[in-house]
């Protein structure tokens, strides 16, 4: 599928899936506590932020170039709308 940049898929999809699914499988039964909470919760909370970091990396490093002219067109339209 030529549509997706493979690096973008690794960073934005594979890494979050492996981290969250794998993390739950490994840490779900653990009795360890981090910051007062069971470690499995800590891990999932951590990935709320890290998933956005991954997606932002996919966008700025790999995908944004494909949408440049669409974004430029939108900005133009917005400016015209304000006039």
């Amino acid at each position, binding site marked *: *599928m*030529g*549509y*997706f940049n493979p690096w973008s*898929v690794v960073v*934005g*999809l594979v890494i*979050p*899936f492996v981290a*969250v*699914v794998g993390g*739950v*499988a490994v840490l*779900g*039964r*653990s*009795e360890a*506590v981090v*910051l*007062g*909470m*069971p470690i*499995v*919760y800590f891990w*999932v*909370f951590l*990935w*709320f*932020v890290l*998933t*956005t970091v*991954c*997606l*932002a990396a*996919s*966008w700025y490093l790999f*995908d944004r170039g*494909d*949408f*440049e*002219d*669409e*974004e430029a067109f*939108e900005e133009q339209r917005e400016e015209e709308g304000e006039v």
Partner: protein
Amino acid sequence: MATVVFAAIILLSLVLALLAARGRDVLRIEEYLVAGRSFGGVLLFFLAVGEIYSIGTMVGLPGGIYAEGAGYGIWFLGYILLAYPVGYFLAPLVWRAGERYGALTFPDVLKGHYGSRLLEVTAALTFFAYLIPWAQLQFTGLQVALGALGFGVSPTTATAVAATIAFAYIIFSGVRAPANISILKDILLFGAIVIVGVAAASAAGGISNVFGSAEQLNPSSSRIEGGQAMTFALTTIVFQAFGFITLTTPFIFTGRSEATVKRTYIVMPLYMLMYPFLILAAYYAISAAPNLEQPNAALFAASVELLPPWLLGLVAGAAALSGLLILAVLSLTIGGVLSRNITPNLTDTSQRRLTQVVVTVYLIVTAALTILAPTLMLDLISLAYFFVTQLLPALFGVLFVRRFSALGITAGLVAGNATVLLLHFSQTNTAGINIGLIALLVNFLVTIVVSAVSKNRSSLAPVAASRRPRTRQVERSTT
């Protein structure tokens, strides 16, 4: 005082619904259902967040943890989180498909791509199947929220009032009303949850005490105990993360471009930062309010203990608003699917009358189910996903797989839905594997096999193979 705050929030939302229609021709069906594909990132974000973080989140998640422990909490958080990476990659393509076929509903996309009446109607019926537990979810939450205010209203009155308000939202402004109300509701919801969570932690004397006291009462509450609970959590996370894209097609269509849709998904996980606070409230309820008759009431059991009345009104108001909002959007979806995909040949007048009758019947039936068969809210979420995710092979056919034929996808859908019904109602033991996932495998298998022997595949290229109409991309691809 709680009642005054609650009533003020509901009134404010009705005003916002009315204002939403200003200067727009809402009688035009495209404007009514997808706001003329005009929403920028901010409105799209709020509408999406408004639809995703429904009352199922606010009331259902604490109830699930209260009744079933960490396994339920984790699958709920995990699937929503992973739905965003999936959406980041697939949602822009869904938007492109919507634009290519001028679609207002997902069955519209299938009609445009395959030109098969049979497939269109089967997909529309699948939508209706998922919409029933999804509305039950909202009604259950609304009952619990109103009950917490201590009006002593009967569940029947509560659901009737709820249905009426939801109807009022959309009658004036179509989808613009939920988008406007979403902003109010998302801010209230976030604030209310943070307040309850902080109050829980300070009342217990620290985060570790909240989990510690819960664990003393129920040792398995903070770990995923047992192989089946773990298998269920993992398979449900993966299954629903992919199902999410089929469930959210209505709001994807409201975006104004592929880039807008894609960018919106990048920031969506950040709204989830309210969940740690909600989890604290849930675990606080386990030790502070043990032996609740109705686990769905866990959040409000904690709130009543922790908050002054006016804040309780705020929490209940935010919860009710999110439930009403979804009911409004669901009614829109039903009306849209019915008028465009089931009975497209009626005149406008009979169309409108039929839609009103069906939406009314739908609200009454789901309200009645809620009263007759109270169900743990997270189980209703699972049930809805069993059905709606069965549309995935159809979506893949439109976006990527040229080999899938209309007949193959229709057969797969029927087989998938039948498997769901069979496994769900016979309560077959699947060793913890999510039964929707099993049904989806059956669905894909049937789709592939039937597609191999039937020849009516689409003559159109899959959506992902087509380029957005842009000069630079064309130049690059020829080099």
